[in-house]
């Protein structure tokens, strides 16, 4: 169950840095869109490792190579 949280820093020139936590995947992007719609102009958006949490659909393919040492 998500528990969205924003850590917001607004500098003295008005520029904002918003850290979104407590949510993963598409829900995180929806919250980022919400902030952008409220504030106006998004300069950058960076996903972190938490974004790819259990809520997102990630497929991992792994192969194991057997090496014989003589």
């Amino acid at each position: 169950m998500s528990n969205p949280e924003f850590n917001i820093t607004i500098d003295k020139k008005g520029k904002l840095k918003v850290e979104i936590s407590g949510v993963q995947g598409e829900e995180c992007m929806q919250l980022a869109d919400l902030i952008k719609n409220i504030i106006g102009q998004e300069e950058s958006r960076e996903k972190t490792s938490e974004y790819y949490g259990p809520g997102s659909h990630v497929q991992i393919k792994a192969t194991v190579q057997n090496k014989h040492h003589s």
Partner: protein
Amino acid sequence: MSAVCVLTPIVISSWPAISTAILGVASTMGYTVVTTEKKQKKLFAPKQNSIELQMENSEVLEESFGSGEKMIIEKDGVQVEFSRTPKGTCSICVTGEKQSKAKLKEIGEEISGRVIQQFAYHKLMTELKDRGYAIVDESVSADQSIQVRVRSIE
């Protein structure tokens, strides 16, 4: 954290909302409000030392701003006048007898930034509260940046 976003506010609003931000900044920076009346004569003669700049990414909605409305704040002989340009942007005119134009520009840019900061803070907090978020913690750091932690309470 799942994502980090960097944003620049676009100040599109009615004059009352912008003037509220100006009043907040005036209070914290030690400025006194001289006047908010229409068609007020400038306290300094027209040829006084002054500079004019536009607040970035700003628009004052016309229907809420009558012609001639302005807000003037003053501190230590420096007068800062906020008004709406014909194009709809927020104009800032900084006047001072004893300061250089460079210093007046610095003062204007600082105040402009702080007004944008206040506007962004209040708009964001209002919108998030309407969506079921509450402020958990907030502080102002030495560099005058505002830190706020907001959490969903729904």
